[in-house]
């Protein structure tokens, strides 16, 4: 069982976000592994373990040279990592991102591709399915539980009303929701081992995608960035045993009670 996990290195979500001069998300600070991707890495490790062996390959792309997030995934237990790292990727839209990832993944031998439902910084939320289409794979999104029975994939997929049990033949692509598994912390041993695990860095030219991705491949543009209508803060009280009464009085004032 070989599994590819798509991961993204993002600016620390706890830090204030900003745009750079080209209206791209400012990624000049330290990048970390998107927490949303740790669920896919953990799921892959567990599925490979259950299958009795195989490789977990993490795949990523970015415009900078950061690899700390990938080392983190390797420290959790992934076998190897491949990143397309190229300044030409700056300004890539979701479809270009999918094209880059598809070109990388097509070089791998895999049974399953895992991704998060969306990244925590850009949250476009379409890249995994675009990737599945480019790779010619069936996809099951919003997985709450994933199991593999022979060559059949079984997924509990979140729906508006509850969930569906969905099946598809392997190879396939699955997006996992947060909380689907409990991501392990990298052990000290894992962190040390990650330093010598294979980490391949590719350029856009290596994949033959020159001129098709990055700002050159994007077919949408930002016209303006404007301050949104803001709300005013109202009354604020420190609870001195009367907090609940204040809430009740407020609910009465707006006729909820």
């Amino acid at each position, binding site marked *: 069982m070989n599994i590819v996990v798509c991961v993204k290195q993002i600016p620390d979500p706890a830090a204030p976000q900003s745009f750079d001069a080209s209206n791209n998300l400012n990624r000049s600070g330290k990048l970390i592994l998107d927490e949303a991707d740790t669920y896919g890495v953990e799921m892959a490790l567990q599925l490979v373990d259950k299958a009795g062996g195989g490789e977990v390959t993490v795949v990523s792309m970015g415009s900078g040279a950061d690899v700390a997030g990938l080392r983190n995934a390797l420290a959790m237990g992934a076998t190897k990592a491949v990143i397309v790292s190229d300044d030409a990727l700056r300004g890539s839209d979701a479809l270009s991102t999918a094209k880059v990832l598809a070109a990388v993944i097509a070089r791998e031998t895999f049974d399953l591709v895992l991704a998060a439902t969306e990244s925590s910084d850009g949250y*476009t939320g379409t890249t995994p*399915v*675009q990737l599945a289409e480019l790779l010619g794979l069936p*996809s099951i999104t919003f997985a709450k539980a994933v199991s593999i029975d022979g060559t059949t994939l079984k997924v509990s997929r979140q729906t508006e009303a509850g969930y569906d049990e969905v099946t598809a033949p392997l190879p396939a692509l699955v997006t996992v929701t947060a909380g689907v598994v409990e991501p392990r912390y990298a052990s000290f041993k894992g962190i040390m081992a990650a330093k010598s695990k294979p980490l391949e860095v590719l350029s856009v030219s290596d994949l033959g995608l020159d001129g098709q991705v990055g700002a050159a491949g994007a077919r*949408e543009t930002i*016209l303006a960035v404007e301050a949104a209508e803001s709300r005013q803060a109202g*009354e604020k009280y420190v609870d001195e045993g009367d907090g609940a009464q204040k809430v009740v009085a407020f609910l009465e004032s707006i006729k909820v009670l």
Partner: protein
Amino acid sequence: MTLSTIWVLAEPSNGSFTTTSLELLTHARSLATNVAAITWGEGGQLGAVAGEYGASTLYDVGDLAGALPGVPVAAAIQALCASAAPDAVLIPTSYDGRDIAGRLSARLDRPVLTNVTGISDDGGLVTEHPVFGGSLTVKAKFTDAGPGVVVVRAKSFVAEPSGGATATVVAAPAGDTGPTGSAVIATSHVEERTGPKLEEAAVVVSGGRGLGDASAYAMIEEVAKLLHGAAGASRAIVDAGWVPYSHQVGQTGKTVKPLVYLACGISGATQHMVGMKGSKNIVAINKDADAPIFQIADLGIVGDVHKVLPALIDALKARS
């Protein structure tokens, strides 16, 4: 109007189309002369509803034989585009809507814009996207001709019937989709829900990390029940596995605009705020006096949810 034709994905749900679908149909008719809807399954029977909300044509992909809608519906739209492509395809932000958008974008090799909360016509389609917790609005557009795929968040527009005549239903089969279309639904499970739906409730009570542990979420559910509202959650506690994803309010979850939103133990991460800042009234209960949620709360209680919520439950019970 510089736009001539817009297609809207109309998702079937319980004998009608989803509210977001109707919102998109309503808005589409203010943007373009020709509005068509695309549906599947039981939606094929809804020519009258599609017409009432402004569509002149209802393209029906038909029965999907259990397949997840993403691939067959995108394949059908692609086939329709081959003869007469629209200026844009508007798709609701939903589980299936996002699948269809991604598949369609890749199949047509056309760009996609998501998390859209506003669409206007300014010599072409201009989309609005809230970013950084809704503190900024990005305006964007496609830079070339051809149908752009636009994925729109719920409650961006208000659904209003136009009184239009029944739409002409036109069969739009998907054809053979090969291996990509091989994901099929074996069984569907409906989770028992008590009270109103999160997106439709007049009162939403949400819990966050400040609850301390999963068991404390029972207090959120109890307050919600006592106020005849729905229980929501921040991403933090959904990620922690305390409550299902379907409870999540925020950028990556649901958008709610209730009469009143009670944020309990929620600090107000930008990702959460964008999903609830459109609420008519906001009440926040949080230990940290500097929590960003207080900046948008009409009533802020600086206090421990473990003290305030039990007292609130007692007070509400005493009234009922």
